[in-house]
């Protein structure tokens, strides 16, 4: 364990594991705060009137035991992949989530790709053209990007592009009546590409475009602002001035001396941005009827479906944790200073 990199990795992984336990505890405690009675929600009025049926139901679901014991039972179930049964769909939460996770990953993945390309590009342009018109325009646009209510923008985009202009297809992942491609990854665009179903691919890309762009707008604004300040900071360094002074062409200075160090911290921000994308999916999926985790989360929260809410919190929390762990590790590998800090 002498290597700082190994020590850094172990520290990060242990922290992530502890946080995972914390996440299970938080979701468990929160769902036990719910004022609504799950017995009433599940059994219906007539059965609730019969104490024997209620007692039997509570015993079957472990609700008659002390909370710490219920938590341990919950943890044991989690280790066996048991997230409970949804009270609405009457199916295992894990199965429900397994169906909706690929849709959300496809949407969030497309949005982060768009955000990285446009956000970093705009940020670099704004920094290089500091205090000129394009910098001011990009600054205002990025501020608008982080200020727009995502749910409202989703509605406006749906109305303008689908309802009025009829440029984009409607809700869902592919056109109604079209059979999905054979499942390999669960991402329709990738699966359609792998199976050579070009009609499905074009339909999937068409359906993906509007929600992904709406979702990406916030992260584009975020990344533009961060990249701009990161590039500006590097541009002021002595070694950049020295590179210019010795007559290197602007392109070489930009790509070799400025962008390499400036874009390393962008990895961290991209990880954090992924969190806001996961948040945004709840609002965007509800409008575009995108059958992902966001829509599932919304439905389960509003119907007080305890195991489903717990499952969504857990899965999204853990996914976000893993993404941040990967980002941290990547950052530590690329930038040795991080390991010792």
């Amino acid at each position, binding site marked *: 364990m002498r290597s700082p990199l190994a020590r850094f990795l172990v520290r990060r992984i242990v*922290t992530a594991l502890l*946080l995972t336990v*914390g*996440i299970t505890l*938080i*979701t468990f405690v*929160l*769902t036990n*705060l*719910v*004022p*609504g009675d799950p017995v009433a929600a599940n059994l219906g009025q007539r059965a609730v009137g019969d104490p024997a049926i209620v007692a039997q139901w509570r015993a079957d679901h472990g609700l008659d035991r002390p909370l710490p014991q219920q938590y341990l039972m919950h943890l044991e179930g989690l280790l066996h992949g048991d997230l409970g049964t949804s009270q609405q769909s009457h199916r295992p939460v894990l199965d429900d989530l397994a169906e909706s996770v690929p849709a959300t990953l496809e949407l969030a993945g497309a949005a982060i790709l768009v955000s990285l390309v446009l956000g970093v590009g705009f940020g670099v342009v704004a920094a290089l053209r500091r205090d000129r018109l394009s910098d001011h325009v990009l*600054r*205002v646009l990025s*501020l*608008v990007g*982080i*200020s*727009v*209510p*995502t*749910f*409202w*923008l989703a*509605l*406006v985009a*749906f*109305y303008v592009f689908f*309802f009025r202009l009829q440029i984009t297809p409607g809700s869902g992942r592919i056109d109604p009546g079209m059979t999905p491609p054979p499942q390999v990854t669960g991402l329709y665009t990738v699966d359609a590409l792998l199976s050579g179903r070009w009609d499905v691919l074009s339909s999937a890309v068409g359906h993906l475009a509007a929600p992904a762009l709406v979702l990406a707008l916030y992260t584009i604004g*975020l990344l533009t*602002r*961060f990249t701009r*300040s990161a590039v500006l900071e590097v541009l002021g360094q002595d070694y950049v001035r020295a590179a210019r002074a010795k007559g290197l062409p602007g392109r070489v200075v930009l790509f070799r001396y400025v962008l390499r160090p400036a874009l390393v911290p962008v990895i961290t*921000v991209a990880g*954090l*941005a992924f*969190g*806001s994308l*996961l*948040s*945004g999916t*709840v*609002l965007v999926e*509800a*409008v575009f009827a995108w059958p992902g985790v966001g829509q599932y*989360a*919304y439905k389960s*929260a*509003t119907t*007080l479906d305890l195991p489903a*809410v717990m499952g*969504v*919190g857990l899965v*999204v*929390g853990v996914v*976000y*944790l893993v993404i941040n762990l990967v980002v941290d590790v990547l950052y530590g590998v690329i930038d040795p200073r991080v390991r010792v800090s």
Partner: protein
Amino acid sequence: MKRARLFGRGRVRRLPQAWRRPLAVVGTVVALAWIVVALAAPLLAPHDPLAQELPRLAPPGPGHWLGTDQLGRDILSRIMYGARVSIPLTLLLVALSVVVGGLLGACAGYFGRWVGETIMRLADLVFAFPTVILAMVVAAALGASLGNAVLAVLVVAWPAYARVTRGLVLGVREREFVLSGRLLGFSAWRSLRVDVLPNVTGPILVLATLDIGTALLLLSGLSFLGLGAKPPSPEWGAMVAAGVDVFDSWWVATFPGLAILTVVLAFNFLGDTLRDALDPRTAGAIKERAL
């Protein structure tokens, strides 16, 4: 140079220049305009926001400049009264986050050891969740109401302040004037209150200003999802949600959304200006936290 002499050294000198920039002027004017609308809504609004007295789903026109909703209520009046719901609640929410997060962060930074560790690990736990997901789970757990939505956003908002305050307090704690106060026999509480807190308020103020927009977005987002304001409250997020059912009547959702956008944008302009006006080094630290 004249200005430098007029306003003395350091921050005070830079502040007026930053405030003369177009973004600052626009931000100030729009924010003030909304505050006036919120205060004077009963005088300004042409109709009762709850009265169902106009034709249903009438497009914008004379008598109802921003149209009417599916119950025949005037949207302009509802937006004006909505400012009395959304803006004060958002400001209260940010103030609560500053107090709760700031106090916990100051304790974590000043006392360190297990107090600091416990508080910061709790903060880490909140950061481990994407904000809307956690706020939604908390709001669903507490029950759908505007008060519970505020509590839910508070749960996800305080850690940012705790982290920033802790970092700033850690920096100030070892400075000579704090140490000499302690050597003179001041209590920990007095030293924290008199010596430490006044030195960390500037950056926290910037963060709070930048956070007003985020808090409003979260709060209206929860209402949009049905986890905040309940009908017939003219809350902006809930008003946008009402527009989902009547898609072809575009005005029902568009104008309340524009109201949210303009308020958030105004406070983000103000936050940006404040950040530029303060020390650039602390501004960098805040930017990272704010993300």
